Structures are given as structure tokens and as C-alpha cells.
């Protein structure tokens, strides 16, 4: 497998002086799914903004063999799609179709290809028939899916998803996981920021954990990370599980995909 993203010694400081990223280095292989875990405010979104060249940090970023700089930026963006945390930022056109075809049109495809790509993307997220709907009037889950379709229609090699399942109900999440499986099987490289350990367990190949120091503290195979309870606890990714059996309140470690007996 070839290396598709390489980040080394990336630093970013926001204009107001807040540290966004603190000496971040890691690599991503082509076709793998990497889940990025981390508590709130640890720099995950900031990292994505740097990878897409929206924010310009100090350090070295290489994407698809190209150094991220002004000259290569356009080419890199052709192959990399990013879905924002808030779908209202992603959907800015009057109708869903306008939004989904926005990317492919800018890629310079002709009208037929654009329509085809957009239809395909909408079908993948199960939103056929929503073409002329106004994004403002969609439900939150529909907005989330439409937002993903706006990027899928560009058929990127790398997908950056910032908390794609937050605010979705359990059934929508499991549907969404199916979409991710489809993308995985197409050989796409996925970078997913999430707080959802269940999602991580389902789809991650490797996991990157961000700490309060705004840098990765651990990277590794998903089993290895998810089984490292101390690491997860220290980084606020799990909490002591407290619950009640009639009158008895008791606490124990948090475990996922496992129903304990009492």
C-alpha cells in the first residue's frame, strides 16, 4: 500500500493566539480508514482545515504525492473532499441538486456527466427525489446525508468527514455505516473525526488519538487502541459507567459491544 497523506511537524496557531495544533505528525495509507478520536477542542477540526489548505499552518503536508502549497492546492482539492461538522455550512445553494452538482461543475465536467455524478451520489446516500428540495427545509439527518453527497459527487480519492454521525438517530447511523462500507470497498481513503466508539469499532482500520496538548498521543490498529482502557480514559474518550439497578447505584468501566451481567 502506498502512502497517501504525510503530515510532519505541523503547527497551527489561531490569530487570537490559541494553539490549534502542536507539532502533529502522522501518515495515512491509501485505501485505509483512519478514525481520529479526541476530546472537544483538541484540534481535530483544525487538522482537517490544514489538510485542505483552508488554514495555513507551519509544517510539511504531503497529499497524493504532492506537497501542499499554493501551486498544488487546486490539484489536491480535486482529489480530496471534506464534509464540515455543521451541514448548514456545507449546503449553501438554493436546492439540493444545486449543491450536489456544485463540485462536479467546478471540476469542469459537462452537463450530462454532472447530472450522472450527482444522481449517483444522491442514490448512495439514499436521497433520490430530493433534487429540487430546499436544503433549509430538510431534517438534520437528511442535511447530513446531503452534505456527504455534495462531496461524493466529486468522486474524491480521500474523504475527510468531521463528526459525520453526530446528531443522527441509531438507524441513520447504521445506514451511514453502510455508506462507509461501500466507500471502503471502492478503495477510498477515509479520515473520520468522531466521538462515537461504536462507529470506530465498526469501520476503523487504524485509530489516531488526539490529546489535550493538541497533538496525537497514540496511533495504531483499532483493536489495540480500543482495548487500551487507560489511554481512552485519560483522553476523555470514555467515562466511568454509572448506572442503577433498582436501588443500587454502581460504577464500572465502560465497555462497548458488551452487555455485562449483574
Amino acid at each position: 500500500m502506498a502512502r497517501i497523506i504525510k503530515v510532519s511537524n505541523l503547527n497551527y496557531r489561531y490569530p487570537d493566539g490559541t494553539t490549534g495544533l502542536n507539532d502533529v505528525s502522522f501518515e495515512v495509507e491509501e485505501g485505509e480508514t483512519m478514525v481520529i478520536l479526541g476530546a472537544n477542542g483538541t484540534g481535530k477540526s483544525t487538522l482537517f482545515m490544514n489538510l485542505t489548505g483552508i488554514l495555513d499552518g507551519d509544517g510539511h503536508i504531503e497529499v497524493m504525492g504532492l506537497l501542499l502549497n499554493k501551486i498544488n492546492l487546486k490539484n489536491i482539492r480535486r482529489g480530496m473532499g471534506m464534509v464540515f461538522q455543521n451541514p448548514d455550512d456545507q449546503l449553501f445553494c438554493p436546492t439540493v441538486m444545486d449543491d450536489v452538482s456544485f463540485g462536479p461543475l467546478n471540476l469542469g465536467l459537462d452537463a450530462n456527466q454532472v447530472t450522472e455524478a450527482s444522481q449517483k451520489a444522491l442514490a448512495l446516500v439514499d436521497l433520490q427525489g430530493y433534487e429540487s428540495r430546499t436544503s433549509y427545509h430538510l431534517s438534520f439527518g437528511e442535511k447530513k446525508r446531503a452534505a456527504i453527497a455534495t462531496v461524493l459527487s466529486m468522486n474524491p480519492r480521500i474523504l475527510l468527514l468531521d463528526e459525520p454521525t453526530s446528531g443522527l438517530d441509531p438507524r441513520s447511523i447504521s445506514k451511514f455505516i453502510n455508506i462507509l462500507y461501500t466507500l471502503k470497498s471502492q478503495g477510498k481513503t477515509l479520515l473520520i473525526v468522531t466521538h462515537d466508539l461504536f462507529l470506530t469499532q465498526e469501520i476503523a482500520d487504524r485509530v489516531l488519538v488526539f490529546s489535550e496538548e493538541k497533538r496525537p498521543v497514540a496511533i495504531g490498529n483499532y483493536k489495540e487502541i480500543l482495548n487500551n482502557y487507560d489511554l481512552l480514559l485519560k483522553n476523555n474518550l470514555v467515562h466511568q459507567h454509572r448506572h442503577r439497578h433498582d436501588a443500587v447505584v454502581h460504577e464500572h468501566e465502560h465497555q462497548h459491544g458488551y452487555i455485562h451481567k449483574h
Partner: protein
Amino acid sequence: MKLTNSLLEKLDPRTKIISFLAIMLCMILTPITRMRDFGLYFLLILAIGFFSNITPRQILKKVCILIPFVLFIAMFVPFVKEGNVCWSLEITHWKLDITYEGVWTFLNIIVKSSLSIFLLVIANATTTFSDFLKGLDMLRVPRLLVMLMSFMYRYIFVLIDEARKLMRARSLRYFGSRYKEQFRAMGYMIGVLFIRTFERAERIYSAMIIRGFSGEILSVKRFRFSTMDILFMVGIIVSLVCIVSGLVNKIEHMRVSGAHLWQGL
């Protein structure tokens, strides 16, 4: 979902923009004293309305919502306009004069704006906003303006929602004392709203450039003038020419004089 689209909905947005603008322009430039012309304009608009799927009830409902605003603005005109007094009202030392000029101006505003509103309601009901924007774009309206309208349409509700949430958060913690403090709270709220809007704009712009935006709005939807468009436009133009040139009056005149001739025989 409607099963059939009316003729007016099938027309190219450009056709509608041009013809409706032409009608409004002609109406506005017609002196108010030519009352008969306005009757004809009314008939023309009715005829246009006939080609849409909306019922007169729906149109009237919307027109009735808008008319009061116009009325409110126009209401005071008869009193303030200088000119020949036609009626004056004296309450002790107050004197209100209504002038002929004022009444005509009042009528001018009311008649023209009612007819325009009528036309706009029909236009609005048969054109989606995005089609309207695309029509404007194709008519070479400056792109920046079109985009501004598009974003306004998309985000005005988001903004209103945000403002409403802030108000709610405030009122949940406000128990009706120290009203001076409230002004400060209001100031903060406006500030927060401004910053949020600004940052949202930045994020939206990022979302656009990531998807390859380079300053040009492109669209898959292609509009083409059909025979229907041409027929519609020709129909409108012919009607307008007839009304403006007073052709209808002349024909009427001919009929009347023809009748005289007939009687004379």
C-alpha cells in the same frame, strides 16, 4: 406534488422576468388620469393569471396581505401634498387640507402598486426562487448581486433561527428586573449574532473553495426559449403596445363613430 405544470410554470424564467418587468414599467409610466388603461392592464394580468394553476382565492389572499402596507404608506399623502384644496377639515385650531393633487397621488400609488403586487404574486407562485436567480444570471445581471440574493435566501432563516435561540436563552434567565442591564445584554446578543454570521460566512466560503469554486456560478439546468416562450412574449408585447398607444381607445372610438355613421344612414 402537482401532476401538471401550468403554462406559466413551464416558461423560461427569462421570459417571465422580461415580460413582467415590461408590464410593470408600462404601468408605472402611464399617467394616473388614464383610468381606462389601468382597467386594461388589470384584464391583461387576469389573463396571465389564467395560465397559472393558482386559484383567484390564493392570489387574493396574498394580495390582501401586502396591500395594507401600501395603504399605510399612501394614507397620509392626500394630507401633505400641496395644491388645490378640495376638502378641508377643521378641528379647533387644527386644519387638515385634502388636495386634488394629493388624492391623485394617493390613487396613483394605490392603483399601480396593487396591480404590481398582483403581477408579482402570480410570478412568485409560478417561479421557484432558484429558477428566478438563474434567469437573472442569464440576463447578465451582475453575478455578485445574484449570489448575494442566493445566499440571503438560503441563510436568512438560519440567521433568524439563531437570533430566536439567543432571545430564548436570554428570556429563560431574565426575570424582569434591572431593565438597563437588558440593553447591555441586547448589545452582546447583536455582537454574538454578528460574529457568528461572519464566521459562518468564512466556513461557507471554505466549503466552496474546497469544492473548486473559482468565482463563477455554474449550473446544470439549461434553459432554452421554446415556441411557447416566444408566443407568450409576443402576446405580452402586442397587448402592451395596444394599451400604451391607445389603440384600444381608437378602436372603441371607431366603433362609436361607426355607430354614428350607421345611425346617420
